Structures are given as structure tokens and as C-alpha cells.
């Protein structure tokens, strides 16, 4: 019973945080693009005359989406048409359950909380399975709309997501080989060691090539610029062309959720998750000998803070990329995925394996 309450509370915290952050993303997108392009950005929405830099535009958007007419095209499969956006949001949300966002919180002798909603041994597989199931939302949206444009867009999106999933999956193999686990919690813990006593043993240092491939492929997975061929709001007809109102809003939300998901994964796999350099469960141990002991609670909170900061920095980076790069052409997209990322990721796995064997021989 106690465990159930704790798990429910953890799930509540994670989903509350993630959904708010996704809503906040609309504001970040508006303001960041404005700053990049020397503009001011949306700042007119106000509540009782308070504008707060236009932070209420997200609320206004949601209100607009909810009150808009919901149009189901003639001849469309009503059930599937409704299910498609629900699937998209559901699978994007559910994947967050396996992300560890902090170290073990020790409340008493027999009450130790893992700051991870679902502690799964093969968490990495689970996350990737859920991300792959996101394709269903896309293809269903195209199929159920009873529109040739939508189904073409859906097929395009599916082809893109499946092509990049291969590079994404193979790039992860290198990381799994180095740390020897698929449990995300253990994987983060394994990144807590130091190389030579001062360099954190993070994935980005042990697998830099895998990191770049992962980032590219994951960006393509989220269907955002420069890989936004399936969506391309105003120029290209995509899979959700027949959607309106909050159903469209859900696809939009999925977009932001997937961006956060990718940021979380990149942090967990390559940037040490909740690890802070030189911080061990009983305090800081700096390489020059200084020490700073601290209690378990402070240590865990620092970890959560570290994780959130890294995720926010990644989200900022993705947004910056989105406003810097132009869109790929469809053939460029495919040749980058199959002729570029795929061979490099395979080569990365082979080289990693060889190096690991040689290192094992030396020891």
C-alpha cells in the first residue's frame, strides 16, 4: 500500500512536471525565436492586465484549441480518427516512466525511494518500444482521415521515423556495451566514476560519435526542424491536415513531449543523468583534495536539479537548432539516414567492441 502511494506520487510529480514543461515550451519557442530574430515575440495576452512577457499565450492557445470546432471529415473512420492523437500523446507520456531523475532517496532504514516511476531492468528497451509505438499515432492519423494528402503525409512520416529508428537503436548499442547495462538507473550510476580521478565517465566522452548520431536521429524522431517534413506547418501537407481543435493540439503537444523525451534520454545516456561531477552519495570529493560532506536529502535534490538543468539546456539547444537550420529535402533526409548515420553507427559499434576487447586484454 505504501509503495503504491509512493509510486502514484512519483508518477504525479513526473507527469505534472512534464506536461507543464511541454506547455511552457510554446512560450520558450515564441520567445527564443524572437530573440534570435531580433524581435520581441508574443507579449499581448494578459490576465487582469498582467502580461509577464506573454507567458499566458500558451493558456490562450489551449483555450482556443478546446473551444474550436472539431471537424471529422466525411468518410473518415471516426474511432481511429479519435484514437490517433490519443495514441501519440499516450506513448509519448508513458515513456517518461522509465527515466530516472534522481538517486535513491533514503527516508528511513526500510524506506528507500528510487526516483524513477517504473524501475524496469530493460528500461532502455521499454523507452525505445514506446517511442516506436508513436509511429502508430502518425500512420493512423493519415489512414483514418480518408484523405490522400493525409495518408501520403502519414507514409512519409512513418518512413522517416522507421529509417531513423535504426540509426538511433544502433547508436545506443555502443553505450550499452561500455556500461554493460540496460537499466537506466544503473547506467546513470555507472557514469558516476571518474576517469583518471578528474574526468567524469560520461557517455559523451566514451561515445562521442554515438552521441552525435543519437542527437541527429532523435531530432528526426521528434519530427521537428530540420527534419519536419511530416509536419511543415504551412508549406507541406502532413498527416494531421484533417485535424482541428484539440486533436490537432494533441499532435502539437506530442511534438513538445517527444522533444523533452529526447532531451531526457540524451541527458541520461550521454550526460550522466542526475550525476554532478565529483559528487558522491556522501558529498563532494574534488580532485584537489577538498571535500564537502552533505546529507542524503541535499545530495538527492542536487541530483534532481542537475538532471533538470541538463534537460532544459538540451531543450534550449534543440530549439536553437530548430531556428538555425533549414529543412531537408526528402531524398536528402533518406540518404542522410541510410547512407550517413546508419553505416557510421554500425562502424561505431564495431570499433567500440574492438577497443573494449583490447582494453580487457590489457587489464
Amino acid at each position, binding site marked *: 500500500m505504501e509503495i503504491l502511494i509512493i509510486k502514484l506520487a512519483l508518477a504525479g510529480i513526473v507527469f505534472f512536471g512534464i506536461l507543464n514543461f511541454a506547455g511552457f515550451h510554446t512560450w520558450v519557442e515564441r520567445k527564443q525565436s524572437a*530573440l534570435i530574430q531580433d*524581435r520581441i515575440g508574443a507579449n499581448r495576452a494578459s490576465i487582469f492586465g498582467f502580461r509577464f512577457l506573454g507567458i499566458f499565450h500558451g493558456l490562450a492557445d489551449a483555450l482556443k484549441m478546446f473551444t474550436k470546432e472539431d471537424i471529422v471529415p466525411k468518410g473518415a473512420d471516426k474511432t481511429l480518427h479519435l484514437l490517433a492523437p490519443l495514441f501519440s500523446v499516450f506513448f509519448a507520456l508513458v515513456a517518461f516512466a522509465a527515466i530516472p531523475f534522481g538517486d535513491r532517496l533514503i527516508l528511513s532504514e526500510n524506506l528507500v525511494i528510487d526516483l524513477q516511476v517504473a524501475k524496469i531492468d530493460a528500461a532502455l528497451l521499454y523507452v525505445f518500444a514506446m517511442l516506436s509505438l508513436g509511429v502508430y499515432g502518425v500512420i493512423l492519423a493519415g489512414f483514418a482521415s480518408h484523405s490522400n494528402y493525409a495518408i501520403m503525409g502519414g507514409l512519409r512520416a512513418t518512413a522517416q521515423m522507421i529509417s531513423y529508428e535504426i540509426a538511433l537503436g544502433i547508436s545506443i548499442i555502443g553505450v550499452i556495451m561500455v556500461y554493460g547495462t540496460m537499466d537506466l538507473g544503473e547506467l546513470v550510476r555507472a557514469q558516476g566514476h571518474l576517469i583518471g580521478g578528474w574526468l567524469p565517465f560520461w557517455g559523451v566522452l566514451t561515445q562521442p560519435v554515438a552521441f*552525435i548520431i543519437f542527437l541527429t536521429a532523435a531530432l528526426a524522431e521528434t519530427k521537428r526542424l530540420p527534419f519536419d517534413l511530416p509536419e511543415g506547418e504551412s508549406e507541406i501537407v502532413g498527416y494531421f491536415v484533417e485535424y482541428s481543435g484539440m486533436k490537432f493540439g494533441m499532435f502539437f503537444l506530442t511534438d513538445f513531449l517527444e522533444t523533452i523525451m529526447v532531451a531526457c534520454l540524451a541527458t541520461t545516456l550521454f550526460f550522466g543523468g542526475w550525476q554532478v561531477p565529483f559528487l558522491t552519495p556522501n558529498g563532494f570529493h574534488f580532485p584537489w583534495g577538498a571535500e564537502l560532506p552533505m546529507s542524503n536529502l541535499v545530495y538527492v535534490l542536487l541530483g534532481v536539479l542537475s538532471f533538470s538543468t541538463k534537460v532544459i539546456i538540451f531543450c534550449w539547444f534543440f530549439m*536553437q*537548432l530548430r*531556428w*538555425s*537550420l533549414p529543412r531537408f529535402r526528402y531524398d536528402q533526409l533518406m540518404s542522410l539516414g541510410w547512407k550517413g548515420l546508419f553505416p557510421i553507427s554500425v562502424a561505431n559499434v564495431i570499433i567500440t567492441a574492438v577497443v573494449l576487447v583490447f582494453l580487457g586484454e590489457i587489464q
Partner: protein
Amino acid sequence: MTVKVVSRPELTFWEKLYIPQILLGLKITSAHFFRNLFLHMLHFVGRFKHLPASVTVQYPDELRPLMSRFRSRHRLTLREDKTPRCVGCMLCETVCPAKCITIVPGEHPDPHVEKYPVRFDIDLGVCVYCGYCVEACPEDAIRMDTGILDIAAYSREAMKLDIHELMDPKLRKPIKNCSLKFPHQCNLTDGEVKGTWEEVNETPLVEKT
């Protein structure tokens, strides 16, 4: 016949790698991002206001500065006793290519002035803002320097300015009461001539030069 050789540069190895070029692009956008973020924060505490953080002009709140020769909405210049400087010579009405000016002249009690406008209407829905009326005027009685740009109305009738609005650029439709003392025709009185010159002469001048 000369042949123009168009060179089509091939991408170099570093450009084909994508990543250095992406980083170059990110450098540009990030430079803008951090510069503007920093400037916005400095502006918030009231510093470095002379360095703009954005090119946006928040239009209804702030207006873009106009050139001094910019032709905006018309106005009639005034004499010291708050009567129009216009002498009803009809030059502006004659020169107007759009035929948007309507003047009804009346006799002025001062023999040196001879005439004045009983009625002076400009239909802004027809006006082409050429500024010929300003150039034609021998008395500097009409100018286009009010800086008013937001001329819009829901009907053609509302686009017509009468002598009240032309003499006082601050007035906006709907005009409730007539404050002019000299005899004039206006829409408020259904085209009847109202006011007398005695009233004007009785009112003391606010400032006499």
C-alpha cells in the same frame, strides 16, 4: 558573342561533413540570442537603452518617428483669434487632382482678408495625399504635418473631415459640440450657418504677439 562561365563551386570536405557548418549557423543564432537576452535584461533595469535589443516598434503603444516632410493628415492653420488662416481663394480645391476638397467661401468683415471658408471639407476616402494643396496655398493655411496615420472608419461618410477636425487635429469623430464662433456651416447644424463675427471679436486673444 561572349561566353559567360558560371562557376558552380563544389562543397569542400568540411562542408560535406555538415557538423562544422551547423556549428557556424548555431554561432550566428546564438550570438543574436545571447546579445538580445543580455540587452533585454539590461533594459529591464534601465541601462543601455540606446542599444536596441529588437527592431520591433510596438505600434499602438509607440509610433515610428516620421520624417519632417512626411505627408500625413491635413490641418488648417489658425490666426491669433482662432479663426482659419484660409482666405477662401479656392486654389487648393482647383489644384486637387482627386477633387476631394470642398470650400464654400464667405465674406470676411476685415477688408484686408476679403474671404474666409464658411465650409471646408476634405474627403479622406478620395484624397491621394499628393500634397499639392499645401504647395498651392498662398497663405500657408493648409498643412499636412499632423502625424496622424491611423485614418480608418466604418463608413464613407465618416471619412469626410469638416472644418472642426481640420482646425483641431486632436478632435476625433464623433464630434459632439461645436466650439467655433465665426459663421460657418457644419454637419452638426444640418448645414445651417451658425455663429457671428461679433462673438469672435468679443473673445479676448489668449496671446497677442
